[in-house]
């Protein structure tokens, strides 16, 4: 369990951001405050367009230097305020915050091999690392996330690996420099549900092992319930509710949170939807029992 007395790893105070020309700027975040302590797993939950992605991109320092972006408030991380942006923020955050993305395959450069990108990542943590050292560490990192043949994965292009493999590569890269904070922006949403679940499990294990704090961005409350210690609910650029995961799920206060919870598809209630009596195509059954390659009883 995270230590509640510790200083937060990331503290966002009254963060406001507006896009557009100075006179006609549209404010999209109206004073967000949140914090993450060391080793804590925090989820930021909200619907599309609620400001989740803007918040984390600001925390990463990715938006500050763009034109027509006006930021007010504070993003305290590692002793500096990242809200104002600038080259110092980019340099400092490099190996202390890592990020993994929705679609792992498109988050890897298609024109060179995993090896080269892994070197770039390790170099951002240690400028003087040699190629041989980087390759050794990359191999070890890939082995840690249970990639069967790390050497071969390093010599592959992202488009040669499966989505699940790429997700593992991304997690290995993200944790290679032992960051204090891992930001996961709807990880695996682009993958199928099984692989997504594996990804989250792996992320959970790995960050437990390294003691890395996690900020999970999601609109999937099922995932959040499994994963997070605390939850912030964001709605139209404001944090409308926050609390421990248990509190939030048992006793939601804000109507929006209640609406979100009500939107989780439930298996109980109406019972399972009726299955057709016969599978339409027995030669190519849709569901195959793991291991024996035969159609499951439900379909036979």
């Amino acid at each position, binding site marked *: 369990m995270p230590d509640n007395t510790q200083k937060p790893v990331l503290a966002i105070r009254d963060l406001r951001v507006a896009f557009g020309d100075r006179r006609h700027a549209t404010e999209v975040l109206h004073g967000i405050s949140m914090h993450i302590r060391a080793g804590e797993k925090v989820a930021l939950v909200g619907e599309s367009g609620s400001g989740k992605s803007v918040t984390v991109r600001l925390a990463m320092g990715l938006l500050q230097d763009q034109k027509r972006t006006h930021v007010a408030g504070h993003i305290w991380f590692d002793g500096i305020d990242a809200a104002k942006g600038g080259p110092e923020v980019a*340099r400092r955050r490099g190996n202390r915050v890592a990020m993994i993305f929705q679609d792992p395959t498109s*988050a890897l450069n298609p024109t*060179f091999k995993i090896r080269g990108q892994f070197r770039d990542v390790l170099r951002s943590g240690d400028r003087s690392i040699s190629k041989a050292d980087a390759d050794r560490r990359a191999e070890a990192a890939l082995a840690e996330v249970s990639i069967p043949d790390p050497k071969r994965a390093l010599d592959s292009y992202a488009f040669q690996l499966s989505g699940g493999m790429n997700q593992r590569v991304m997690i290995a890269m993200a944790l290679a420099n032992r960051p204090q904070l891992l930001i996961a922006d709807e990880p695996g949403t682009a993958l199928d549900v099984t692989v997504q679940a594996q990804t989250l499990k792996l992320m959970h294990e790995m960050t437990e092992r390294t003691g890395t704090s996690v900020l999970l961005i999601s609109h999937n409350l099922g995932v959040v319930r499994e994963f997070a210690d605390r939850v912030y609910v964001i709605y139209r650029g404001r944090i409308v509710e926050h609390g421990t995961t248990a509190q939030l799920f048992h006793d939601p206060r804000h109507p929006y949170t209640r609406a979100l919870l009500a939107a989780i598809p439930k298996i109980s209630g109406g019972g399972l939807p009726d299955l057709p009596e016969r599978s339409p195509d027995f030669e190519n059954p849709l569901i195959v029992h793991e291991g024996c390659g035969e159609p499951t009883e439900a379909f036979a």
Partner: protein
Amino acid sequence: MSNILRSFLYRLGAALIVMIGISMLIFAIARVMPGDPARIALGPNATAEQVAALRLERHLDAPLPVQYWEFVKSVATGDLGKSLYTNRPVTTDIAQFLPATLELVFVSGILMILIGLPIGILSAHYRGRFPDHVGRLISLLGVCTPAFVWGVILQLVLGYFWGWFPIEGQLSQSVTAPPAVTGFMLIDMALAGNGAGFLDALHHLILPALALAMSGLGQTARLTRSNMNEVYERPYVEMARAYGFPGRRIAMRYGFRPALIPTLTILGLEFAAMLGNAFLVEKVFGWPGLSRYGVEVILRKDLDAIVGTVLVIAAAFLIVNIIVDILVNIINPRIRLAAGRA
């Protein structure tokens, strides 16, 4: 590498078919153009008998397919016929004029890449800021101003007002031409060990090459910029930024390299198009090249010379395209690996 070789042979075969098609087309077009080539060649004072004799000598009265067959037979032996204008074998004329054009186009191509790509990269990297505005202005001017206008502007400003460069020709009058070994002025100068002559030739080459390069250079910069801006929206660039990679590394490895693949294809077309644009520049700068020769023989309806020149330029065009295709295959791992599996 064998799949690259296979795709090379495939492209070579396709190019051969294109060449045959072009030869038929230009052969027919040259012959349906109005005017009697024999009459034009001999001038208004020649007698009807002389004209008839020349027509007979050149098989000009035979049916078109017979003429084409005669032509194919002679091409197979490396003979492109005889120019009615210079009265020399067309191959001799081409050998004399082609190197100057190739030299011009090659140096233009290098300028196009060396200036166009960096402008595009800087524009994309400093999107919406000062370097981008300057880069876009230069590339827009490059694209929308014809090569001969650039020729005259460069001659006036850099040649006449400022006197930095010679205005026309391949060499200064005080410099003697080197013995023709390859026909390429720069290479022959270097082979002759004439350093001063080499620099003089290069000095003469820069303005026409720049004038010829401007349009392709602008196009290259614009394409590089727009392709890079598109790549900058991809998640892997955001990832590179999120990890705090150095700006130059993000620009070159994560922005420019993926953007180069679509740019390179157009770059090849621009390069090949220079062979056609070279005429105007050769005219303005008094450059003794093949494009100028080609226009002169067209105006004189010099049948064999027209066909020969067009075929040589078409061959150069196809060769450049094959080279570009191979380069694209090499830098794009997806195509390279897919070709291996197919």
